[in-house]
């Protein structure tokens, strides 16, 4: 059976584009000529077995790792050489596989920090933040949207796992990003939590395009407009969910018996 392997599809105005990204650790090619595009309005899922290079790819897109070769473009600007913060300022929002929060801050102050990052004014030495409506109002609105309004004053350390996930998403959302990079958002969530989070992400679909790295296949097939499959650092398949489900190659390297 022949497969339509489309590693580098020609797409209209991608908001995020990765071109020929390669990163080696010694002899191991963690990402090998990876090309991906995210177009406005879509949720693009990236799946692949453990060790396929997903984490390395996310780290390169977010700016924590520098690629050996290749380019990353965000909204028509090359961001390959920018710092993590520089990329975030240009509109790259992300969540982490393991929640990354300011744990001693309340949920509200965490989101306020994200609003502050978006406003780009962290050298204010005079005005107290607790009365700063430009931070408070948007932060409260975002918390409300993500169902955390009642937990606003609770420190992040005291939030439950599910709430921390929610808070991370709220922070990414408060940045008003052009692109959302979601690194295994369902990790560690129970079945109910996964369903609820799937609903949340689905509702955000029209607000911001998302690159979704996820192991939970129910969530992936429920959300994704397009799925790319990564194996041994390469994109081996890219297409709509039905095509991925039907693909013999994908089934072989990844879905195994469960597809």
């Amino acid at each position, binding site marked *: 059976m022949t497969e339509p392997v489309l590693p580098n599809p020609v797409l209209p105005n991608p908001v995020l584009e990765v071109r020929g990204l390669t990163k080696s650790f010694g002899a191991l090619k963690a990402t090998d000529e990876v090309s991906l595009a995210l177009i406005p309005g879509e949720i693009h899922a990236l799946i692949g077995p453990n060790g396929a290079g997903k984490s390395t790819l996310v780290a390169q897109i977010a700016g924590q790792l520098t690629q050996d070769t290749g380019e990353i473009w965000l909204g028509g600007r090359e961001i390959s050489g920018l710092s993590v913060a520089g990329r975030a300022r240009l509109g790259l929002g992300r969540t982490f596989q393991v929640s990354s929060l300011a744990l001693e801050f*309340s949920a509200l102050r965490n989101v306020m*920090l994200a609003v502050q990052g978006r406003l780009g004014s962290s050298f204010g*030495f005079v005005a107290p933040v607790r009365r700063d409506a430009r931070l408070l109002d948007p932060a409260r609105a975002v918390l409300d949207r993500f169902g955390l309004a009642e937990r606003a004053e609770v420190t992040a350390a005291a939030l439950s796992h*599910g709430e921390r996930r929610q808070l991370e998403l709220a922070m990414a959302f408060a940045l008003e990003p052009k692109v959302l990079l979601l690194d295994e958002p369902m990790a560690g969530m129970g079945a*109910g*939590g996964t369903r609820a989070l799937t609903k949340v992400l689905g509702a955000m679909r029209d607000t911001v395009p998302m690159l979704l790295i996820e192991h939970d296949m129910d969530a992936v097939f429920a959300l994704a407009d397009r799925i790319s499959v990564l194996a041994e650092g390469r994109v081996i398949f890219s297409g709509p969910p039905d095509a991925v489900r039907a693909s013999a190659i994908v089934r072989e390297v990844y879905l195994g018996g469960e597809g």
Partner: protein
Amino acid sequence: MAEPGNAIPDSPRSGGSPLPPLGGGLGRGSVESWLNAALAVLLLAAPLAAIGLGEPYYANLASRVAILALAGVGLNLALGYGGMISFGHAAFFGIGGYVAGILAQGAFNAAPVISWPVEVMGSDSMVPIWLAAMAVSGVAAVAIGAISLRTSGVYFIMITLAFAQMIYYFAISWPAYGGEDGLSITVRNGFPGLDTYDPLSFFLICYGVLMLALALSWRIMGTRFGAALMCARMNPERLATVGIEPTPVKLAAFVISAMITGLAGALFADLNGFVSPSMLSWHTSGQIMIFVILGGVGRLFGPVAGAALYVLMEHVLGGLTVHWQLPLGLILLGVVLFARGGLVGMVAGGARHD
């Protein structure tokens, strides 16, 4: 678009967190506020009472507490709030001291302190000396911080130590300002409207500066800059992810921190009428660190409590034995092992600033 709204239920294994909601949101622990007020009043009342009882010596002791606390307030900004464990703040303390000493000497000899590229005359007035001490400490901190902040953890500790030791050896080997012997301030610098030789007046100057620095610290920590700085300590990756570069934020805090410690150095020089290279030595860095750790890392009045206890022990136990640092060491050990919030934390509870 649709409203996501619905909260996500917990996964079974995460459950409720054992941690209490540390005083919540933006509020401040009220016990700590009372303790801070008590410390401020106590430090003011002690020399007043001493002078009333005809023991002006104790006013000098209180000035010493205020000045060392001020040095600690500076370090606390970097170490406590910003998580930058500087083992080189003696550099700024000493630079402040030498700036005061050199300017005072210049004024005394009526000779320019610097003759090229511009002529800088000395000064025998505290306020311009303080500004100069803060400026020079700040410039040194920009250079030291910009290089040191490329590292973190134990390397940061070592590189700040190395810079301070470099300046220490430089001071020792520079004969123009006394080398190993140090530099005397023959006439204590003046302050408009006050007799700075009067122990109480000098104390009030030190106390006023300390209160100003505390107010500034408190104010800064409540601002956007403070929020970014505290996040840089807790989780620099998180800060970068919301688009804020951690390094410039930390560098700015390091510089402000150094300027406050430099100001303390200038006052210390006037208190002793003398500047010596020992102000620059790593022992001094360690001492300033002890004030902060003893009193409470990242607690506003921590350095005040720490410096007060240090000076009290130095005075009371130092009168009994030359080995007074042994009990100090034991107390420090106890604080580090059992009371991470220091003296302030022991009274006001485990909550840090939020």
